[in-house]
């Protein structure tokens, strides 16, 4: 069998090997990689740095894949020598490996500009997983970072570092950011967006040296200006790794020269990826690698064709909330159509040459990028209305957009999946959800920007398409809630206004602000920056506003069990504050209605009972029956279990209110089967039921699990409770949540989940609980001096009388 040696274990080499394998077992393959990792998605390193993905998430080929395909993988070995006469390669471990065919896929390295002091401790490139890991170790609050280079990689590195709490400045040699992809106005829009994220941008600065003894202390520019730095990342560009090509005796210019069959000047040596130069171009982006890999695989396996004729260059900046897309050659076109909306930070430039699209720039909104890519690829005639070049005309047929795309059009540029391939997957493999599509075709597993396009295709083509339901809270911050939770978590955002500033319209409204407040509280287990202005009035004063602006007060009476002493205090409060109505609620509690805001702290102090949270999206109560203590039918001590359940969950906030009940027998006197969480006592155990309702909706709860011990029942309730907190949309009651997910899935992810998953849920629950406190303590220790206390005008005495000369205008 022919021996194929691949030098380079990166995306390009492995994409090609993957294609070669599809042609059948023709080679004995050995792969050398100088990094110690299996093949990973280098494009996603910035997501690893930003904490959105882990190193494991970006693995493309696992060790099992190499083993399964009988590939001899040698990681951590750098090839240092090639003998083109004997046909051998020599590794830095001294081993000599013979080859029949040699594939060079060495990629490129970070280019280090001529700056003095690059060897100092604290200077990094941003190119490999090891670089990324090292940066993650050093990044943190209090660290001042300088990123040299305002291109794609530099900006992504800057954002990644900033997310970890670093103060970041991007220093760029040119007068505008990403000048290879953006024109000056587009670059200005990008500067504004980066600065809004809190990243400083210095343009037109040439860094001459890095100062410091052993460690980095500052960078110095050509004008003598200095900037303090603990960490310097150099992202000034890349250089093709061509040394092996030189040693192999093949033609090398800037890259290793290949023809349209991806052949080098030697019949037994091939090259692919960022190390090659094709028709004078060295590519530094991912899409060409896949196209080249396919062509080379065909050539290597003895086919003449297809050929590689070059790739339209397209770049997407991967920073959440900063959408930038650029493709083609916009600079050398004679005709342009432009659109600007400074308020929304949107900029578009469409460049036309000979009636065809030459290039495009999109800043702020890149949702139409596929439309332009398609025009670029097909050379479509653009003689139609000019304004439709900027925005597609509204379509009456929602599927039309999809139907107009050619089968050969690329949907996922990262992985190289065409519309045709997706349609085949839908028809031949029964794919009908986005996750299945990802699994089946790998489409949308790269940068993920094509997800909406994939969804659109599924919707238009799959007969039993299932939309993975995503609801956007409101237009102020237009993300699906699960996506928003990911953003808040990975971007380490802790305050509502931070979220709105960066990912929203900077303003927010009465719908999104309380929702974001909840999310932040839940995600950070109570350790967020509480902003009361983002809360509904009930959560500002911990009481329920009534139609006349007064409030209702419901103290906590756990399990509905009270005492003569408590009742006496409640009665005294009712007298002292002339409470207009005292009412027994449906939740086995007592409601005092018509209390003035200013009286709330005193009322709470006199009651001497904690808040019953009857005013908020949080834990309401546990209704109980008398159980084995008194009832002749009782099989379980439902009262004690209910009190314990309430004690464990109280003071926590939830996506919507949570009402619970425990009953001692299936007669169900406290109506546990129509509660959000219910414990139903049976002979020898408990049934834990969830998702019940008896309000706006009526729904019988689903059985989550049956257990023997009370502690097990409480634990099961705890798992469901935390799972609901983390995964429900804001204002989604458990009955909608359970219905949406299906009880099977809920069981699998809570009570039947692997122990580490359950432990993690419990840990986060305990963490939140540890920080939670009785909201009514604010009566004694208010968040703000005027939280409850009424304001009296400074001039209140004079104003009733005649004008006070001091204050007269």
């Amino acid at each position: 069998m022919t021996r194929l040696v691949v030098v380079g274990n990166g995306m390009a080499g492995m994409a090609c090997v993957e294609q070669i394998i599809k042609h059948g077992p023709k080679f004995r393959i050995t792969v050398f990689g100088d990094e110690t990792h299996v093949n990973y998605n280098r494009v996603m390193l910035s997501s690893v740095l930003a904490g959105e993905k882990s190193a494991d998430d970006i693995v493309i080929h696992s060790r099992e894949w190499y083993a399964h395909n009988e590939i001899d993988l040698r990681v951590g070995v750098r090839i240092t020598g090639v003998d083109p006469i004997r046909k051998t390669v020599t590794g830095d471990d001294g081993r000599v490996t013979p080859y029949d065919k040699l594939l060079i896929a060495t990629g490129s390295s970070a280019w280090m500009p001529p700056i003095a002091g690059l060897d100092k401790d604290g200077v990094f490139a941003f190119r490999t997983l090891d670089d990324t890991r090292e940066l993650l170790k050093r990044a943190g609050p209090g660290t001042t970072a300088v990123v040299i280079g305002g291109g794609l990689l530099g900006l992504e590195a800057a954002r990644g570092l900033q997310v970890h709490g670093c103060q970041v400045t991007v220093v760029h040699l040119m007068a505008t950011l990403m000048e290879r992809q953006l024109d000056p106005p587009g670059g200005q829009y990008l500067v504004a967006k980066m600065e809004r994220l809190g990243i400083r941008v210095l343009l037109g600065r040439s860094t001459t040296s890095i100062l410091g003894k052993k460690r980095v202390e500052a960078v110095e520019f050509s004008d003598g200006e200095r900037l303090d730095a603990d960490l310097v990342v150099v992202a000034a560009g890349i250089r093709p790794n061509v040394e092996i090509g030189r040693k192999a005796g093949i033609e090398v210019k800037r890259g290793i020269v290949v023809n349209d069959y991806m052949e080098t000047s030697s019949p037994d040596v091939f090259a692919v990826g960022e190390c090659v130069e094709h028709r004078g171009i060295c590519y530094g982006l991912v899409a060409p690698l896949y196209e080249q890999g396919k062509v080379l695989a065909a050539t290597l396996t003895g086919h003449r064709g297809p050929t590689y004729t070059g790739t339209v260059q397209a770049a997407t900046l991967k920073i959440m909330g900063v959408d930038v897309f650029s493709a083609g050659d916009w600079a050398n076109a004679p005709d342009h159509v432009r659109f600007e909306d400074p308020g929304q930070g949107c900029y578009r430039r469409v460049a036309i040459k000979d009636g065809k699209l030459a290039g495009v720039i999109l800043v702020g909104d890149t949702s139409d990028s596929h439309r332009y890519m398609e025009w670029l690829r097909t050379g479509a005639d653009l003689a139609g209305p000019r304004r439709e070049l900027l925005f597609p005309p509204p379509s009456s047929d929602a599927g039309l957009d999809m139907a107009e795309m050619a089968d050969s059009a690329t949907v996922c540029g990262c992985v190289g999946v065409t519309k045709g391939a997706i349609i085949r997957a839908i028809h031949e493999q029964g794919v009908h959800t986005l996750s299945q599509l990802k699994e089946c075709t790998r489409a949308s597993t790269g940068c993920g920007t094509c997800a909406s396009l994939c969804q659109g295709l599924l919707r238009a083509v799959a007969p039993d398409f299932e939309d993975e339901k995503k609801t956007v809270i409101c237009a102020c911050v237009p993300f699906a809630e699960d996506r928003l939770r990911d953003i808040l978590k990975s971007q380490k955002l802790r305050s509502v206004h931070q979220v709105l500033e960066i990912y929203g319209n900077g303003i927010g409204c009465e719908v999104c602000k309380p929702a974001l407040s909840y999310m932040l509280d839940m995600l950070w287990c109570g350790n967020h920056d509480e902003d009361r202005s983002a809360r509904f009035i009930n959560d500002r004063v911990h009481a329920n506003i009534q139609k006349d602006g007064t409030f209702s007060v419901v103290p906590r009476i756990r399990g509905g069990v009270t005492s003569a002493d408590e009742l006496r205090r409640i009665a005294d409060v009712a007298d002292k504050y002339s409470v207009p109505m005292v009412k027994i609620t449906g939740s086995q509690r007592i409601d005092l209605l018509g209390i003035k805001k200013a009286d709330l702290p005193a009322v709470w102090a006199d009651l001497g009972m904690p808040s019953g949270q009857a005013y908020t999206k949080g834990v309401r109560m546990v209704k109980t029956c008398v159980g084995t203590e008194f009832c002749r039918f009782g099989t379980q001590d439902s009262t004690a279990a209910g009190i314990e359940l309430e004690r464990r969950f109280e003071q926590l906030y939830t996506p919507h209110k949570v009402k619970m009940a425990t009953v001692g027998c299936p007669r169900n006197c406290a109506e546990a089967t129509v509660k959000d969480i219910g414990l139903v006592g049976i002979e020898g155990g408990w049934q834990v039921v969830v998702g019940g309702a008896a309000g706006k909706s009526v729904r019988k709860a689903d059985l989550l699990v049956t257990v023997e011990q009370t502690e097990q029942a409480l634990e099961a309730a705890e798992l469901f409770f935390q799972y609901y907190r983390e995964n429900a949309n804001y204002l989604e009651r458990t009955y909608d949540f359970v219905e949406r997910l299906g009880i099977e899935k809920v069981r699998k992810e809570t009570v039947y989940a692997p122990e580490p998953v359950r432990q993690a849920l419990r840990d986060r629950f305990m963490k939140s609980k540890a920080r939670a406190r009785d909201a009514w303590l604010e009566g004694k220790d208010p968040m703000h001096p005027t939280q409850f206390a009424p304001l009296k005008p400074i001039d209140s005495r004079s104003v009733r009388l005649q004008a006070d000369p001091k204050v007269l205008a």
Partner: protein
Amino acid sequence: MNESRWVRVARCESFPLREGRAVQVADREIAIFNLGGEFLATDNQCPHKGGPLCDGIVTGRSVVCPLHTWKINLESGCVERPGGIAAPAVQTYPSRVEDGIVVVCVPVGTPTGWVDSEKIQYCHITQA
């Protein structure tokens, strides 16, 4: 009779950012909102059912009444939501900051609830 006077209300710190506070000035209850160093004053009653505007959530330069989510523009007093209805505007008051104290200009001797029919501003705003 249309005389008005400037009344010192309270120090700026009394008004948390993006929140409102009510204050009784003579016979009228005024809501004052802190929009970031700028303080806007309106009557505290929502034109719908009299809800306390000071307890609403501020969104941009408007407030959303806590009772039935009517949205009132704090500068003009116009009802922005629900749209398409002719609702009387909420009375607004000029305001400024003097020596760290919020000062509002209140008409003298005009009882609360009394509306000069000439001055009713009807709004026809249809904002989504």
